[in-house]
């Protein structure tokens, strides 16, 4: 099951650049939360702070608190453990090109030293079913490489790979921006279905997509979170003029 995420006074820097300023936010468990805002507004930095990927950059640092369920992300667990519990899917699908479909999905388990073949088979099948890819690849699991799949299939393969290590949260950074409308629709259906088991945070430039998939939406601008509310409120009657100007295309 997913867990809620509570962010308090989160600040982040790249060198001297103050990229995130005093972010406070509660993302409920088993909901999809969309983050929108113009390029460079800090939304991707924000999600990278949630699973401590931000700190992989040597000039980056962050302060404040991120709680995921009962765990303080920055105090109670190692970055490796956090990244197991918080899966991430990126803009461009990045399957391991030389690995088979099966090995792509199983890679996280293998990295964690998991060796039981029968259970591994079960996890691979469950993950591929979870990402709605099973029916399309079940006959080619070991025959085809991840790179041989279409872009949309590759993205669902990456989602299966993330699901295989049984995370509680899925971060998606523009997961459909490189996909055609049919593949995009499959990813959106997937997000809808995955919500029952995971908490989802999705960064998107596509506001219609945010409106379709997320219960809550946050609008970022210049490193600050201007407004966070139900998606319905944000897209029909936002409280802040800057949010309204952005979503109606009056600036950005």
């Amino acid at each position: 099951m997913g867990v809620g995420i509570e962010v308090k006074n989160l600040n982040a820097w790249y060198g001297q650049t103050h990229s995130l300023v005093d972010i406070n936010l509660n993302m409920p468990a088993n909901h999809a939360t969309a983050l929108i805002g113009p390029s460079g507004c800090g939304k991707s930095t924000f999600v990278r702070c949630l699973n401590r990927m931000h700190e992989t950059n040597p000039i980056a640092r962050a302060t404040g608190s991120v709680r995921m369920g009962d765990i303080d992300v920055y105090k109670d667990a190692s970055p490796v453990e956090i990244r197991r519990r918080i899966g991430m899917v990126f803009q461009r699908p990045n399957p391991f090109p030389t690995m088979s479909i099966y090995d792509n999905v199983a890679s996280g388990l293998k990295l964690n030293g998991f060796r039981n073949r029968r259970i591994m088979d079960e996890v691979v099948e469950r993950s591929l079913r979870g990402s709605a890819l099973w029916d399309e690849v079940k006959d080619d699991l070991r025959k085809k490489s991840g790179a041989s799949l279409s872009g949309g299939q590759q993205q669902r393969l990456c989602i299966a790979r993330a699901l295989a290590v049984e995370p509680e949260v899925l971060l998606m950074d523009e997961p459909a921006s490189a996909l055609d409308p049919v593949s995009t629709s499959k990813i959106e259906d997937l997000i809808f279905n995955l919500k029952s088991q995971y908490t989802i945070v999705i960064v998107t430039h596509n506001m219609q997509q945010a409106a379709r998939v997320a219960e809550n939406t946050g609008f970022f601008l210049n490193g600050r979170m201007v407004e966070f509310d139900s998606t319905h409120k944000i897209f029909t009657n936002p409280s802040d003029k800057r949010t309204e100007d952005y979503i109606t295309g009056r600036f950005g």
Partner: protein
Amino acid sequence: MTRIKFHQSLDELKEKLLVMAGMAEQAIQRAIEAYRVRDASICNLVVRSEPSINRLEREIDQMALDLLAMEQPMAIDLRFILAVIHINADLERVGDQAVNIAVRVREMEAFPSVDLPVDIPRLAELAAAMVRKALQSFIEGDAEMAASVLTMDDQVDKMNEAAFYALSTLIREKPELTPQALNALIVARNLERVGDHATNIAEDVIFWVHGKDVRHHVRSDV
């Protein structure tokens, strides 16, 4: 991503709706004038204006539909387009009411003019004032002005109700005046409907400006 073309299209949509508003308002004013002076030639003008209003209604709906389909508007822009679609329908019906009144006035020509115990001109003035004010609130995007239209509707309703009782009493007491009384009754009802459409327009302005749905209004919401 400043959407210049989209915002120009919204301006064009507003301008077109204002043309429609001008035509509907003119139709109702002419119908009222026709009633006041019992002039069939004015009635003809009203009836002849209806096809133009109907054509404009279709054009505005098409423009709004195109914008919804092509631009996926959000927030205040989305509310504006929805409000325009509703207001457009109400204006067309204001035009219909004007035609209904004009038809009644023509009918009344066949009967001798009599004094009736109703103040139709005053009711007409109030209904027309509601339409004017509702449209002004749309032009200015002024939700407070729109809210004031809603309170005027109560007065129109009361006047229509009073007309109903006065005229039904007259019919009972002087059955020979039934045709004139019935015509006046229908005109009063038409004017009350005009007030209702003005109320709808005002509610749509409030929705557009504040995102608040005050239809079937609980006055405290307004």
